[in-house]
C-alpha cells in the first residue's frame, strides 16, 4: 500500500499538527479529510487564546492555513462526528482516523454550591468572550465589585486580564461583540485569584505573569508567605524568574488604580454561598500560610466565581475512555481496548495526553501519533478503503458543510467588518450567520 486515506477529527492545533506531519512524510501518498464540529477551524487558537494575544493567533495564518490549501486536504466544517457521522461510519471509510478533539469538559472543584448560578468554569467564560457559538448566550453577573477566580494557571491570568483590561484596549482586540459590551459595562473592580499552594508552586508561566506589569491602571497585590527574593531560594530558574516578577508587581505603584488583582496564595474554596445565586465563597487557608488564624475559614463576597483548575476530556461514543485521567485510552497515540490496539484509530493532543502544555506541545505529540500510524501502515495492518461514502453521505443528506473556501469567505467577512471599526476582525458567533457567510 503506497496510498493512505486519513480522517482527522478536530481542527485545533492537535489536528493541524497531525496534518502537518502527514503532509511532511514521504512514505505514502496521503489524502486527508478534516472534520470540524463548528463552521470555523483552528479550535482553541480561535476560541481559547486570549483576545489580547494576537501574536499567538498568527499561527493560523502563518502555518495552519497552508495545510488546508493543499489539493490532498479537504475541510468539512459544521460536521460533528458522533451525530452527523458515526465513529463506525468513519472507520469504515478511511484507512486511519485520528481524533484530535481536545478537552471539552472541566475538572470539578467538588465543593458544595459548585453548580450555583454565578459559578462558571473559566473555560465557559473564555469560550464566551472568544465568541464560541455554543457559549454566546451565557450571562455573567458583572454587577458586583468583585470576581473570584479559583486556580493560578495561564487561563486564570487570561481571565483576570480580561476582567481588568481598560475598555479601549479591549476594543482593539477580536473579542466577541457581546463580551465587549458586557465588559465595558462591568462593575467588577477587584479580581481575587485563589491558589491552594504557594506562589512558588503557581501554575502560570513567566510571560503571562510578566504581562501584569504592563496592565494600565491595574494594581496587583500578592499575598504569599513564600514570596522570597530569588537569590534567597534554591528554586529552579523558571521559579526564580517568577519570584523576581512577583516582587516587582508588589513594589509597582499605580497612580489612582481603577481596578486591582489580588493573589491569595495558600487559600482554597470550601463552599460557595448563596440561595439562588452565588453571593460569596467560603475559603480556608493552608499550611505554610502562617497568617493569623491559619486554617480557619473566611468568606469573600462575590457574584461571579470562575473555576480555573483545569480542563478535562470527554468520552466519545464508540471509543474507550479512561475515567481516571479523562483521556481516550491509548498508548503513544494508538487507541487501546484494554491491551489490544484498535487498529487504524489514533488520538493526539489533549484527548490523548490530558490538558497540558502550550500550542507547540501538540506538534511533538502529533509527531509520535503519526509515527505510530505510519508504522502500522508500513506493517500492513491498516485496511485499505477506496470509496468515499462519508463525503457522499454528506452531499446526499444536504448537510450544510463548510469547505475551506467557505471558511475563507467567513474570514474575509469578519476582517472587513473589523477593519471598519479599527479591530482585527469582528467574529460571527451565530451558526446560521456563519453558514450564510460561508455560502455567500
Amino acid at each position: 500500500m503506497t496510498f493512505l486515506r486519513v480522517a482527522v477529527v478536530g481542527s485545533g492545533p492537535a489536528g493541524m499538527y497531525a496534518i502537518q506531519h502527514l503532509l511532511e512524510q514521504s512514505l505514502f501518498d496521503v489524502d486527508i479529510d478534516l472534520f470540524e464540529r463548528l463552521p470555523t477551524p483552528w479550535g482553541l487558537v480561535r476560541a481559547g487564546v486570549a483576545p489580547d494575544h494576537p501574536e499567538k493567533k498568527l499561527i493560523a495564518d502563518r502555518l495552519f492555513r497552508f495545510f488546508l490549501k493543499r489539493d490532498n486536504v479537504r475541510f468539512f466544517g459544521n460536521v460533528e462526528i458522533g451525530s452527523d457521522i458515526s465513529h463506525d461510519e468513519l472507520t469504515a471509510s478511511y484507512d486511519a482516523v485520528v481524533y484530535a478533539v481536545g478537552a471539552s469538559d472541566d475538572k470539578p472543584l467538588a465543593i458544595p454550591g459548585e453548580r450555583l448560578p454565578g459559578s462558571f468554569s473559566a473555560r465557559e467564560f473564555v469560550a464566551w468572550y472568544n465568541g464560541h457559538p455554543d457559549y454566546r448566550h451565557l450571562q455573567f453577573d458583572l454587577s458586583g465589585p468583585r470576581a473570584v477566580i479559583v486556580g493560578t494557571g495561564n487561563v486564570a491570568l487570561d481571565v483576570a486580564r480580561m476582567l481588568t483590561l481598560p475598555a479601549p484596549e479591549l476594543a482593539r482586540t477580536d473579542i466577541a461583540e457581546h463580551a465587549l459590551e458586557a465588559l465595558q459595562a462591568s462593575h467588577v473592580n477587584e479580581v481575587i485569584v485563589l491558589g491552594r499552594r504557594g506562589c512558588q508552586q503557581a501554575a502560570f508561566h513567566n510571560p503571562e505573569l510578566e504581562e501584569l506589569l504592563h496592565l494600565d491602571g491595574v494594581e496587583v497585590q500578592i499575598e504569599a508567605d513564600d514570596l522570597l527574593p530569588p537569590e534567597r531560594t534554591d528554586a529552579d530558574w523558571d521559579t526564580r524568574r517568577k519570584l523576581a516578577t512577583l516582587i516587582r508587581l508588589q513594589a509597582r505603584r499605580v497612580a489612582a488604580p481603577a481596578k486591582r488583582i489580588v493573589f491569595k496564595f495558600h487559600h482554597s474554596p470550601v463552599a460557595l454561598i448563596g440561595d439562588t445565586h452565588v453571593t460569596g465563597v467560603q475559603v480556608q487557608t493552608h499550611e505554610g500560610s502562617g497568617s493569623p488564624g491559619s486554617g480557619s475559614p473566611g468568606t469573600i463576597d462575590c457574584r461571579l466565581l470562575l473555576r480555573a483548575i483545569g480542563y478535562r476530556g470527554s468520552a466519545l461514543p464508540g471509543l474507550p475512555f479512561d475515567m481516571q485521567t479523562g483521556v481516550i485510552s491509548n498508548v503513544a497515540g494508538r487507541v487501546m481496548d484494554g491491551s489490544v490496539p484498535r487498529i487504524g484509530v489514533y488520538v493526539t493532543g489533549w484527548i490523548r495526553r490530558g490538558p497540558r502544555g502550550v500550542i507547540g506541545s501538540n506538534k511533538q505529540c502529533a509527531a509520535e501519533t503519526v509515527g505510530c500510524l505510519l508504522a502500522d501502515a508500513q506493517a500492513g495492518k491498516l485496511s485499505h478503503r477506496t470509496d468515499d461514502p462519508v463525503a457522499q453521505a454528506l452531499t446526499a443528506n444536504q448537510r450544510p458543510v463548510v469547505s475551506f473556501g467557505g471558511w475563507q469567505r467567513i474570514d474575509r467577512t469578519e476582517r472587513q467588518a473589523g477593519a471598519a471599526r479599527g479591530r482585527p476582525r469582528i467574529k460571527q458567533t451565530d451558526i446560521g450567520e456563519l453558514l450564510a457567510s460561508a455560502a455567500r
Partner: protein
Amino acid sequence: MTFVIAAPCVADYSCVEVCPVNCISPGPQDPEFQNADQMYIDPRQCIGCGVCVEVCPVAAIYSADSLPAKWRHYTEVNRSYFTQRTNADDIS
C-alpha cells in the same frame, strides 16, 4: 547581532529544526521540552542569520535591537536560560 525569542513563543520548535548552528533550546528530544513554555536562543552561539525569524509561525523572534519595549528583557531571559540554570533545573 543575536536574535531573541520573546513572549509570543508557543514552543512550535520550527526554529530549532532550521537553526544551522543548533543554538536554540529546548528541542523536542530534550527532557526540558516537556515543561517548556518557550524556546530560547543562546547568544553565545547565534550567528545572526535570521532563518528562525522566517519560520516562526507566531513572529516571536526579533533581532535584539528591534525588540518591542515590553519584551526588551527577553535578551536577558534568553541569555540567562543558558547561563543561570543549574543541573537541578533540568530535573524539575
